[in-house]
């Protein structure tokens, strides 16, 4: 049933969001972001299946691609940051403070 898929999607999204809020390791935060994306793709596909349209499926395709590009660039940034600061803890990356 559509309803169950949507609840599942919301649950996974909430878990991902929880991770973004909670964790201090940048990589884990990033994985939480990816989890949120995956949850939204799940919802989209569910809608597309239950409405009989194809637009949702197509859009998932694009989301996938964008997520891949985003991960690539994000990880490149993290690596560069690690090289400079020798840390990937967000608590220690606070040079914008004040």
């Amino acid at each position, binding site marked *: *049933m*559509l*309803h*169950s*898929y*949507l*609840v*599942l999607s*919301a*649950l*996974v999204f*909430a*878990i*991902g*969001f*929880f*991770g973004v*809020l*909670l*964790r*201090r*390791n940048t*990589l*884990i935060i*990033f*994985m939480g972001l*990816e*989890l949120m994306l*995956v949850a939204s*793709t*799940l919802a989209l*596909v569910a809608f*597309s*299946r*239950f*409405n*009989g349209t*194809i637009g*949702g*499926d*197509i859009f998932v*395709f694009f989301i*996938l*691609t964008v*997520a*891949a*590009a*985003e*991960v*690539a*660039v994000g*990880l*490149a940034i*993290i*690596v*560069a940051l*690690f*090289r*400079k600061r020798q840390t*990937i803890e967000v608590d220690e990356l606070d040079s914008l403070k004040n």
Partner: protein
Amino acid sequence: MGLFLFNFFALLTVICAVGVVVNKNTVNAAMCFMLCLVGVAGLFVLLEAYLLAFVLLLVYAGAVAALFLFIVMLLDTHSQPRPVRRFALVAATIAAALLAVAVLTFHQQPKLAMAAASTGASGASLKDYAYQLFTTYLLPVQIIGFLLLIAMLGVIVLSRKIEATEGAK
């Protein structure tokens, strides 16, 4: 049968998602993430979006998550101490609130409680999919290509040697 499979894959996804978030070891978290993606792929198959399921596995689990693993192992980080309990409580509260709101919204919409559509999933046919991709949604495809090019360039620029960037500073 469908219900059992749905439950199975749903449980897999949720447990692995939780595993990603609470794992102290980053490598473990990345592995859990991969497994979570497998669960979602299974759900896609249940929703008759076969191409997407495989694309998910190939691209997301196979490339993106693998990239994650690479970087995790590249950056030699030590295990993290547990996060502070106070923050955990606040974050959990917010996430729970988010979930509650979402579920409530779904409950209020009667149309969402529908059963599977009588017609088959239109995304099932590869031919239809491809056709739509190259006619109605051609522009986004081109833009995505452009985006990938930019991302590639960005990554290359960002990962130049430190000496070069330090000289610029």
